[in-house]
C-alpha cells in the first residue's frame, strides 16, 4: 500500500516542488496555516508552562476540554466556544486550588481529581449524544488537522493575533512572577492577576489547538518543545524563540510526513517531539558524564573564591 501511495505523492530533492505538492490542495493549505499559528503560540505559552511548573495543570486543562467539546456538540454550541468555556472553568478551578494551597507548586491530587471528573462528564455527554457525533470523539482526542474549514482558520487567525499581542505585552512581568513571585509583587507586578490571566490564555490556546493535535496530544506542542529549549539555553528570550522554532518544525515535518503516508499527523508531530526530547536529554546526560568532567572542578573553585 505504501508503494502504491508513493506513486502519487512522494518527496523529491526539489524543495520548491515538494512545497508546491504539499500545498496543492486547499485542505493542506488550511492545515499548514492552522498548525503554524497554533505552534507559534504553543511555543510561547509552553515556555511559561514549563517555567511555572504547571505542565500537569495545563495538561488537565486541555483534558477538561474533552467535556467542553462533547458538551458543545450535545447542546448545539460551536466546539471552539465549548472548549474555551470548559477551559475557563478549569482555569478558575486551578487558580482557586492554588490560592487555597497558598503555594506555587500545584496541588496535583486536586487537579487530577477535577480532570478525571471532567473526563467522566465528557463520557456522559457522548453517551447522550447522537451516534454520528460519537464517531467524532476520535477527532477531539487526537485532532483532525486535515479537516480544518475556512471558518476554523478564521477563528484560529484571530485568536492567534489576540494571544500573541497579550503574551508579548505581559511577557516580562509574567516571567518575573513565574520565577520569583515575592520580588515581582514588591516591584508592583500583579502576580495573582497574571497567574489567572495566564490560565485564561492557555484555555484559549487549547480551544483552538485541539483541532490540530487533539486534547491528548497537545502536550507535544505545549510542553515538549519548551522543555527541550530550557535544557539547551539559560536565556529566556532565546529559549522562547527556540521553543517556537521547535514547535513549528515538529508540526511542519509532522504534516508533511502525515501527508505522504497513510498514518495520522498527530502521531508524527508527537513522535518527532518526543524523539527530539529523548535525544537532547540523552545527549546532555552523556555530555555531563564524559566530556564536561572539568565543570565540577571549575565549580568547586568558584564556590571557594566567591565566598572569601
Amino acid at each position, binding site marked *: 500500500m505504501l508503494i502504491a501511495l508513493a506513486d502519487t505523492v512522494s518527496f523529491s530533492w526539489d524543495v520548491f516542488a515538494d512545497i508546491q505538492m504539499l500545498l496543492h490542495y486547499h485542505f493542506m493549505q488550511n492545515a499548514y496555516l492552522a498548525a503554524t499559528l497554533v505552534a507559534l503560540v504553543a511555543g510561547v505559552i509552553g515556555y511559561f508552562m514549563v517555567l511555572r511548573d504547571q505542565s500537569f495543570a495545563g495538561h488537565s486543562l486541555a483534558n477538561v476540554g474533552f467535556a467542553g467539546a462533547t458538551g458543545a456538540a450535545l447542546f448545539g454550541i460551536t466546539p471552539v466556544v465549548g472548549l474555551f468555556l470548559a477551559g475557563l472553568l478549569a482555569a478558575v478551578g486551578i487558580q482557586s486550588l492554588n490560592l487555597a494551597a497558598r503555594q506555587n507548586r500545584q496541588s496535583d491530587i486536586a487537579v487530577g481529581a477535577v480532570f478525571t471528573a471532567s473526563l467522566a462528564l465528557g463520557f456522559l455527554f457522548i453517551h447522550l449524544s447522537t451516534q454520528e457525533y460519537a464517531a467524532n470523539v476520535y477527532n477531539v482526542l487526537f485532532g483532525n488537522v486535515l479537516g480544518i474549514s475556512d471558518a476554523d482558520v478564521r477563528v484560529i487567525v484571530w485568536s492567534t493575533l489576540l494571544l500573541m499581542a497579550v503574551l508579548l505585552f505581559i511577557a516580562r512581568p509574567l516571567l518575573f512572577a513565574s520565577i520569583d513571585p515575592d520580588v515581582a509583587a514588591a*516591584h508592583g507586578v500583579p502576580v495573582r492577576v497574571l497567574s489567572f490571566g495566564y490560565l485564561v490564555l492557555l484555555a484559549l490556546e487549547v480551544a483552538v489547538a485541539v483541532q490540530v493535535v487533539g486534547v491528548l496530544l497537545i502536550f507535544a506542542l505545549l510542553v515538549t518543545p519548551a522543555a527541550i529549549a530550557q535544557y539547551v539555553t539559560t536565556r529566556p528570550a532565546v529559549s522562547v524563540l527556540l521553543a517556537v522554532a521547535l514547535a513549528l518544525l515538529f508540526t511542519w515535518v509532522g504534516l508533511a510526513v502525515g501527508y505522504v503516508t497513510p498514518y495520522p499527523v498527530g502521531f508524527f508531530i508527537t513522535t518527532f517531539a518526543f524523539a527530539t526530547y529523548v535525544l537532547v536529554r540523552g545527549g546532555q546526560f552523556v555530555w555531563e558524564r564524559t566530556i564536561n568532567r572539568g565543570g565540577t572542578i571549575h565549580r568547586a573553585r568558584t564556590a571557594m573564591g566567591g565566598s572569601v
Partner: protein
Amino acid sequence: MHESSFSSLSTATPATLAPVIQVEDAAVDLAGRTIWREVRLAVQAGEFLAILGPNGAGKSTLLKAILGLIPLSAGKIIVLGQPARRGNAAIGYVPQRRHFESDVHIGGRSIVRLGLDGGNWGLPLPFLQPRKAREASMRVQEAIDLVGATAYADRPIGELSGGEQQRLLIAQALVTRPRILALDEPLDSLDLRNQQGVAGVIRQISRETGAAVLLVAHDVNPILAAVDRVVYIAHGQVAVGTPQEVITTETLSRLYNTPVEVLRASDGRIVVVGQAEEEVDSHAHRPR
C-alpha cells in the same frame, strides 16, 4: 536611649541630611493581633541596620511595612520624603527564603536583569534602542560586579550554591541603584563562611553606593562587625541603638519583660541566655 539618638538626628538635620526612612509611632495589627506598636526609627543614608528578635516578633513585618506591602494600623512611615508605597524603585528588596530549585535553568544574569525592568509591560526591542540595551546590560554587569558574582553569573541559577544564589539575588535588588536595601534573612541557610562573606559584601555595597541597609537576622554574630545600629523587636516592643547599647542584659530584660542575660565571649561573640534564648531557638509555637 533610642529616643535621644532619634531626636538629636531630627533636630540637627537640614533637608540634605533628612533620614531616608522615618518611622513615626508606627503600629501593625495582623489578624486582630498587635505585632508591634510605637515604633520610632530614623535611618540615614549609608547606615547599616540589623533588625533582630525572636521568631514571630515581627521583623519581616517591619521590613514589609517599610516596603508598603503591609498597611499600618497607626502612625506613619516616610520613605525618601514620601509615604511608604508598594513598588518603590528606590528600595531594593530581597525577601526571605529563597533558593531556586535545581531544575530552574535560567542564567543568573537574566535573574538580575529582572530586577531592572522585569516589572515593565511590553517587550524591549534592542535593535531599535541599542543605547538603552547597552545601558541596561551595563547596569546588570555593575550589580554583578558589586556582589562579586561575575564568575558564575551566566550559569543556571538552580545549579549554584546557596551563597552564590544569595549574592545574585542581592545583585538583582541592587540593579536599580536603590537608596535603600531591604534584606530579609539573607544569611539564613548559609554556612558560617558564606554568612560572613555575604555580610561583608553588603557592608561594602553600603559604603560604596551610600545605600541604607536594613537586614533582618536572627543571629547577630555574623554581622556584628558590619552593623551600625540594631533594631531589636520582642513582645511587640522595639529598642533601637548600637549593638553595645541594645544587646545588654538590662535592655533585653526590659523588652522581654523577664530576666535575660547577655554574655560576651572573649572573641566578641554575643550570647543571650534565659527566656530570650529559648525563644530565639525554638522555631515554632512561641507562647504569648
